[in-house]
C-alpha cells in the first residue's frame, strides 16, 4: 500500500543548527540573546503547560544531529514502508508565539533554508513544509514566494495557536501567496504561548493531558473562520490541512455551522454554499491522534458524517508521545488506500502520482 505520512517531525538535537543560516542582527539575537532554555533552545513564548515526560518517544534518543535521520529511517520510514514523509519540523512553528515578527520571520527563513539544505537531500521520501510566522502576513507571504517554488516543497505550515482566527482578512496575504505558488496552507497543533494568548476558551486549563485533549477547540475556531470569511471563494484552488487537532469533532461543528448559516446567511453574502460543502472540498484533516472510543462503530459513523473517506489523511506524528502506528490505524478497511496515501496526492499536487502506482 502507498503510504504518505502527513506529519513526520524532523527533529534537531539543538537549534544551533540554524546558526549558519542566520545573519546580522537576528543572528546576534539568536546566538547571544535571551532564549527559552539553554544554548540550543529555540526562541519562543512557552505555553503554560509542561509535558510531564517531554514530547518525544523514549525509544528515540539521538546524540548527534545525524542520529535524528538515522533513527527515523530505522524506526519509522523503513519499518513501516513509508513512501512519502511530509516533514513538519518541530519547534519552528513556535516562532508564531514571538511578539517580534521580524525575528520570528528570520527564524522561519533560517529553518526553511536548513530544512531544504540538510533534510530534503537525505532521503527520496522527504518532502518539505515551509514554516512561516503568521503574525506578519506580508513577511510570511514573501517567505512563501521566496522558497515556495522549490520542487520538493509541498505546503505552507503554521501553528494552530494564533493571535486571531485564520479566516480573518488580516491573514489573507498568506492565502494569496499560497494560491499563487499552488501550495496548501497547513496548521499543526502548537504555538499556545506568547502572543497567542487564547488557545483555550474560558481561560487556561490546569494539566497537560487535560489541555492536550481539548486543544482542538482552537482548530474549530480556525475552520469556522476560514469558511465564514469566504477564503475558499476568494481562492477556489486553496486547500487547508489541519494537523494533529483531532477529527471526531468535525461533523458536530459542521452541523452547527450549516444550521446557523441557513438562518443568517445574510451576514456573509459572499458565501455561495453550505459551510459543510466548503469543508468537503477544501479542508483535510490528518488522522493522528485519531479518537479511540470503546465501540469503534461510534467513531466510524462520525467519520462517515464528515466524508472521512475523502477528507482524512494519515499522519504518524513520529516521534511524539502520541504516535499513531501505520498497522494499528482503526479506519474502515475500504477507505484505507485513500486515507493512507491517495487523498494526499490530491492535496500535495507536487507529489508524483507514479510513486503511488509503483507502490501498489
Amino acid at each position: 500500500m502507498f503510504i504518505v505520512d502527513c506529519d513526520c517531525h524532523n527533529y534537531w538535537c539543538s537549534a544551533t543548527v540554524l546558526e549558519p543560516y542566520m545573519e546580522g542582527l537576528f543572528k546576534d539575537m539568536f546566538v547571544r540573546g535571551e532564549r527559552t532554555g539553554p544554548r540550543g533552545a529555540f526562541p519562543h513564548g512557552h505555553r503554560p503547560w509542561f509535558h510531564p515526560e517531554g514530547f518525544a518517544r523514549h525509544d528515540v534518543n539521538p546524540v548527534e544531529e545525524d542520529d535524528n535521520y538515522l533513527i527515523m529511517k530505522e524506526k519509522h520510514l523503513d519499518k513501516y514502508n513509508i513512501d512519502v514523509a511530509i516533514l513538519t519540523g518541530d519547534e519552528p512553528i513556535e516562532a508564531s508565539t514571538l511578539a517580534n515578527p521580524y525575528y520570528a520571520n528570520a527564524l522561519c527563513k533560517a529553518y526553511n533554508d536548513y530544512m531544504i539544505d540538510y533534510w530534503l537531500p537525505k532521503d527520496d521520501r522527504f518532502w518539505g513544509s515551509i514554516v512561516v510566522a503568521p503574525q506578519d502576513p506580508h513577511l510570511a507571504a514573501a517567505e512563501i514566494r521566496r522558497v515556495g517554488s522549490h520542487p520538493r516543497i509541498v505546503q505552507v505550515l503554521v501553528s494552530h495557536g494564533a493571535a486571531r482566527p485564520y479566516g480573518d482578512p488580516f491573514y489573507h496575504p498568506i492565502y494569496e501567496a499560497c494560491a499563487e505558488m499552488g501550495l496548501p496552507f497547513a496548521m499543526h497543533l502548537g504555538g499556545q504561548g506568547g502572543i497567542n494568548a487564547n488557545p483555550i476558551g474560558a481561560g487556561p486549563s490546569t494539566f497537560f493531558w487535560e489541555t492536550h485533549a481539548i486543544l482542538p477547540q482552537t482548530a474549530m475556531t480556525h475552520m469556522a473562520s476560514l469558511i465564514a470569511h469566504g477564503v475558499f471563494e476568494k481562492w477556489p484552488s486553496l486547500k487547508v490541512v489541519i494537523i494533529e487537532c483531532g477529527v471526531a469533532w468535525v461533523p458536530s461543528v459542521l452541523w452547527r455551522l450549516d444550521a446557523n448559516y441557513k438562518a443568517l446567511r445574510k451576514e456573509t453574502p459572499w458565501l455561495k454554499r453550505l459551510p459543510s460543502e466548503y469543508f468537503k472540498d477544501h479542508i483535510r484533516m490528518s488522522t493522528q491522534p485519531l479518537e479511540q472510543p470503546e465501540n469503534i462503530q461510534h467513531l466510524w459513523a462520525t467519520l462517515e458524517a464528515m466524508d472521512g473517506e475523502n477528507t482524512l489523511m494519515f499522519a504518524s506524528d513520529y516521534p511524539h508521545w502520541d504516535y499513531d502506528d501505520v498497522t494499528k490505524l482503526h479506519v474502515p478497511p475500504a477507505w484505507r488506500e485513500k486515507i493512507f496515501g491517495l487523498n494526499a496526492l490530491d492535496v500535495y499536487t507536487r507529489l508524483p502520482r507514479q510513486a503511488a502506482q509503483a507502490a501498489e
Partner: protein
Amino acid sequence: MTTKHFACKADEVPQDAAKIVSVSNMPIGVFRLEDGFHALLNICPHKGAALCEGPVCGTTKQTDATEFVYDRAGEIVRCAWHGWEFDIRSGEFLVDPAVKTRRFDVSVEGSDLYVHI
C-alpha cells in the same frame, strides 16, 4: 382544480407584515407587495413554525467581494422562529430553493381578497 376562498378585506393587509388568516382550516399569511398580494402557507418547512409571522424585510445580495448590498426590501419573510429567509412571491428558501412553503394565488374582487386553494 383550485377553489376560491374568502380570506379577508384587502385593506386589512398591512404593508410591512403579513395578515394571518385561516382558510379551510389552513393557516395562511397574506402579504402586500408592490406588484400586488401574495399568500403563503403559515407553516415553515423547516420545523413547522409560524413562518409568515416573522419580519418582512430585505436581505444581502450574494456578492463576490466582501461587501454588503442590501436588496429586495419588503420581498423576504424571515420565519418567526429560526429566521430562515423565504421569497414571499415563490415561497422558496433562499439558501436552498428546493425547500419551499406552499404558495397560493390571490385575487381581489372589490374590497374582498380571495386565496385559491
